[in-house]
């Protein structure tokens, strides 16, 4: 039978094709997550001219460079403040921060909690691969306790962050967690989040066989996906304090926070203030 090569992909129209192939390892989950994101962009009817994607440094930090929208690849840990400035200046745009766990909640953790507290109107998609992949698999704030990494050769002594709990406590109006296996549920969640305003946070667990899995008895991408498949349990509106990721226990996924009557966003308050103080000459409609 003749080999049939696939030369087109349904999301080609949203990708910088001249930048492909991407840099991610075989078996990595970021591609599936990017695909789910583009599916959500499509379903939500987002005009790509009005979409800005901001990433930081790391494997997921490369996402911005592949999406055919205005996109920024900033410094390590800083995509959130970049997005905050851009969204304040251009409240008419959809501003998405798409980056990794090390970037957003380890080196950039301070910006994460403060943007959530301020209710900055940005959608944050965090890919949690449990380690620093690009630099060779070091421990991070999201590495589960006892897991092995290149800088925890005897097992991780630290407790890891429970990110949905952190985001909810800091004030996020929408909090969900999925894995790279839950492509459709993830896309649905991103689509839903696009239609909301305020600080929205979606954590996506990703397999990272190359630098995490193979040190933790899951050497292939499929092994980590099997870990997700056998251990994930969907529990919508579970109290986020109960969703910490602990090796050997269930991984709780789902939508945990979705505030029905969202608070005004920081941007709305700022532009209302400008409208009031400038005597109506600036602000409204911006």
């Amino acid at each position, binding site marked *: 039978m003749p080999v049939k090569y696939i030369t087109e992909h349904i999301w080609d129209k949203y990708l910088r094709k001249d930048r492909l192939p991407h840099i991610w390892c075989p078996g990595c989950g970021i591609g599936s997550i990017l695909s789910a994101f583009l599916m959500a962009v499509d379903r939500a009817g987002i005009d790509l001219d009005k979409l800005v994607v901001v990433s930081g440094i790391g494997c997921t930090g490369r996402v911005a460079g592949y999406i055919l929208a205005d996109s920024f690849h900033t410094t390590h840990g800083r995509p959130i403040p970049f997005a905050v400035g851009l969204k304040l200046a251009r409240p008419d745009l959809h501003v998405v921060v798409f980056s990794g766990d090390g970037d957003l909640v380890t080196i950039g953790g301070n910006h994460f909690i403060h943007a959530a507290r301020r209710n900055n109107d940005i959608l944050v998609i965090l890919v949690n691969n449990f380690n620093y992949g690009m630099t060779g698999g070091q421990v991070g704030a999201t590495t589960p306790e006892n897991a092995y990494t290149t800088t925890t050769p005897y097992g991780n002594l630290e407790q890891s962050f429970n990110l949905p709990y952190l985001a909810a406590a800091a004030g996020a109006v929408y909090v969900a967690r999925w894995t790279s296996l839950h492509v459709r549920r993830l896309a649905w969640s991103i689509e839903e989040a696009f239609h909301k305003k305020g600080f929205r946070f979606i954590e996506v667990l990703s397999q990272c066989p190359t630098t995490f899995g193979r040190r933790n008895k899951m050497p292939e991408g499929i092994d980590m996906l099997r870990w997700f498949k056998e251990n994930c349990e969907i529990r919508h509106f579970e109290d986020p304090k109960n969703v910490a990721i602990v090796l050997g226990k269930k991984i709780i996924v789902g939508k945990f926070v979705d505030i029905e009557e969202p608070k005004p966003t920081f941007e709305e308050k*700022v532009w209302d203030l400008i409208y009031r103080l400038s005597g109506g000459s600036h602000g409204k409609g911006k």
Partner: protein
Amino acid sequence: MSLAPGIYFLSGNYAVAEGAIMAGCRFFAGYPITPSSELAERMARRLPQVGGIFVQMEDEIASIVTIIGASWGGLKAMTATSGPGFSLMQENIGLAVMMETPIVIVDVQRAGPSTGMPTYIGQGDVMQAKWGSHGQYEIIALSPSTVQECFDLTIRAFNLAERYRVPVIVLMDERLSHLYEKVRVPSPDEIVIIERKRPRSRENFLPFMPDEDLVPPMPPVGEGFRIHATGLTHDERGYPHMDPEVQERLVRRLCDKIRKHADEIIDVDTYAMDDAELAIVTFGSVARPAIRAVKLARENGIKLGLIKLRTIWPFPEKLIEEYATNGVKAFIVAEINYGQIYHVVREAVAGNAKVHLLPKMGGAIHTPDEILDEVVMVKRNAR
């Protein structure tokens, strides 16, 4: 509205804020730090009145990154800080350089290192302003020495940032930031306001393809250009490129767009230099006692002049060299550090004259007598 034309009594910090507003600054992000805090306070009060945004961030790293984002969002943006905060900003000054983002950073220098003397003057950030971020690059740094110059040079800082798509640093100092003086606010038609170049067309547009002046037009976001900007070495499309030739082309251009326009950027004020045999080189608040020292010296028959640097970076080396080869026998560099501009002056003088350092470690400013005493010593040694 910007301040109405007229005479005002303002502090250095307030004058910078009002100059920024007149220049079109409509975004400020900052973090409180002595002695720059009044600048943020003034912006918090004033910006919403003129349709601008003020936001106090969680730290100085967030502050500078937020203004980079706001600048890409189309607003003229500024932050203000002092030494410790300026140190925290360094990595992202490099990001602004690499993404060619117009921003203005005010560094109200205080005595360091570390926490140092928060409420007292220092001038120890001169070299940090030039070399603080890693890698090779060029920025612009201006240094006012009167409250009027705080106003005027802040307008110029925005114009230069927009013109060259580069971070511009206003190197203030504590003494000047808290000094109240008369400021003449001109009418808008008396001043020139420069806006960033915009692309002429979306067709075949490459976001980092420079014009002949080495500066690429800056595309707006949200209008279909769908650009990519990165801190990684990138080609003219803005795409990351790990190729030494691309690095060579990019970094050379980032430096040359400033170096090749140095004559347009450099702004030096001279006083009594026509027949000077000795010259004080200084900047910022120290220029004030230095002028007094020149007057006292002239009363005593000493041919002393003053070179006041209003642009510190790029440094006016050609001008210094010309003086060194045309009559000035010795330069006295007065600065509130243990020798920073001194080294640059020595390099420019290139052995054609003597160069003496008159340092202070911080916390206090040179008195006119201290400067004059040094001048007399130098004159005696010169004989």
